[in-house]
């Protein structure tokens, strides 16, 4: 039986990992991910699962350590945040190039400087081109579900890629809320033990992660790109399977009251649910607004995005990170490029919001919708704008 409990989302993320029959984890604690590290180490120390928890001295080591273990065929997990993720950066593209199905939780947090421990998406954006599958959760339930799904997706023999599951630091990780835990037996059925294609073993030595000369390097890079693009169909397949077994539906692009909406806002992560309330308020006032929520950041779901925005006149993209000196926030740049070849496409605006824990309550989303609608009415074409920022 599924269990309905109140639990802090960070703790719930560790509990979800505990349901996935992992062999090994190496996690270096960092705010706001620490509760995941602490609780997972407790689950192992209490003997609730048969796994190794390796205490490491840094994130560079945690990611290296889980990668080595993954290469031996183990099911592995790590988690990090902010500067920790940046410290892993050197290793991240190696994990995907070696096609190691590492699953990592990222408690999204701003990056220094100024030093800031609060939530935004500046940590994951510099990892965009590392070749990982990158997912975003909107709430605690999605953190639990997506964690379990991630192992199955990553280890699928046609995928074999690492996954980074993003959950907003504090807003999600430190909130106690209602979560329905799936039944362990059903999870075991959904997620059988890993079947690796090749493994490192002293009795049967192989080389992994070798030198790629100019004659092969480009082919290796291309094949990795193809693998990441192709992974989407298996992600969809696994989400279908999840829905059949557990009843909750997951899509690369989620929509809220978007079908007939003239004005759409695009969000990624936990602010989407707050923005839904702004949509409800404006709908009551007769404004034709809706929401598009991006769950899959890599591989980018171009087809689903195009379908979701095809009838809109205006698309407001929100970003929670800055691409200094670029044409807008990273999500905006991607969305704009993705729609460039469309004959009919909406006018696109970009608001950079919620940096370093700056709160964005419902009235701010209402104001953004209204301000953008007025600018669009006047036919103003513009790129990004920092919402509610002084100076």
């Amino acid at each position, binding site marked *: 039986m599924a269990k309905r409990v*109140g639990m802090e989302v960070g703790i719930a993320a560790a509990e979800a990992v505990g349901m996935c029959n992992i062999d090994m984890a190496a996690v270096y604690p960092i705010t706001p991910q620490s509760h995941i590290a602490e609780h997972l180490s407790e689950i192992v120390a209490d003997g609730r699962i048969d796994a190794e928890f390796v205490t490491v001295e840094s994130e560079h080591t945690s990611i290296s350590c889980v990668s080595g273990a993954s290469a031996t065929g183990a099911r592995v997990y790590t988690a990090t945040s902010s500067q920790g993720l940046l410290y892993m950066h050197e290793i991240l593209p190696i994990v995907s190039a070696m096609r190691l199905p590492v699953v990592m939780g990222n408690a999204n947090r701003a990056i220094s400087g100024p030093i800031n421990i609060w939530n935004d998406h500046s940590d994951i954006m510099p990892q965009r081109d590392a070749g990982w599958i990158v997912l975003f959760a909107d709430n605690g339930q999605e953190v639990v579900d997506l964690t379990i799904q991630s192992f199955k997706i990553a280890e699928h023999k046609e995928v074999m890629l690492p996954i980074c599951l993003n959950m907003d630091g504090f807003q999600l990780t430190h*909130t106690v809320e209602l979560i329905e835990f799936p039944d362990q037996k059903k999870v075991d059925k959904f997620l059988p033990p890993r079947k690796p294609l090749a493994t490192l073993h002293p009795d049967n030595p192989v080389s992994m992660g070798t030198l790629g000369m100019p004659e092969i390097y480009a082919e290796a890079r291309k094949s990795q790109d193809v693998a990441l693009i192709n992974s989407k169909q298996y992600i969809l397949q696994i989400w279908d399977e999840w829905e059949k077994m557990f009843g909750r539906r997951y899509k690369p692009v989620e929509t809220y009251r978007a079908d007939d909406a003239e004005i759409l806002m695009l969000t990624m992560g936990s602010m989407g*649910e707050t923005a839904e309330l702004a949509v409800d308020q404006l709908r009551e006032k007769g404004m034709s607004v809706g929401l598009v929520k991006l769950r899959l950041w890599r591989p980018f779901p171009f087809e689903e995005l195009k379908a979701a925005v095809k009838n809109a006149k205006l698309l407001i993209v929100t970003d929670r990170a800055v691409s200094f000196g670029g044409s807008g926030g990273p999500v905006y740049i991607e969305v704009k490029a993705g729609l460039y070849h469309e004959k009919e496409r909406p006018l696109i605006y970009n608001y950079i919001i919620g940096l370093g824990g700056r709160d964005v309550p419902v009235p701010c989303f209402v104001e953004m919708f209204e301000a953008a609608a007025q600018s669009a009415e006047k036919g103003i074409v513009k790129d990004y704008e920092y919402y509610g920022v002084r100076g």
Partner: protein
Amino acid sequence: MIEIRWHGRGGQGAVTSIEMLALAAIEEGKYAQGFPSFGPERRGAPVAAFNRIDDKRIRVRSAIYNPDVVVVLDPSLVGLVNVLEGLKPDGTLIVNTVKSPDEIKKELNFKGTVVTVDASHIARKELGVPITNTTMLGAVAKAIKVIKLKSLEGPLKERFGRLAPRNINALKRAYKELKISEAA
């Protein structure tokens, strides 16, 4: 939806309070959130923590600006921090103090409902320490009326183990001993 802000000092267990209250509400089949004021906290420094409780799924994740209820765990915080900030004019203020509700009303010039209880005294008697978070939960349960006192017992038992009976006694006493002065 009911929104609650808790004021305490680092180490007084405000975060435990919000967790216990959220768990009790969820146990009753309701929806609830409990979250701390995000960021670093220091022992003894004023801190805040928050709850939302509703019969429907809660989607809002921003901070709470206009709470329906404010709970003050430490009497010394009244006057030190603006405990009334954003509190709805017809809202409820629940204070751990030896003073009467009318004295607090006058002191703060607040016209909503005021609940007072000498939680420090109860906690000292029942728990042997002046940590009032669980005691004040009893007062909150009575004042906000949306959860039953009994629903707090399960979460407290799970959290406090052999110390749970004492904490449950403390919250029952606060439930009985509090004084209310309704909104004018």
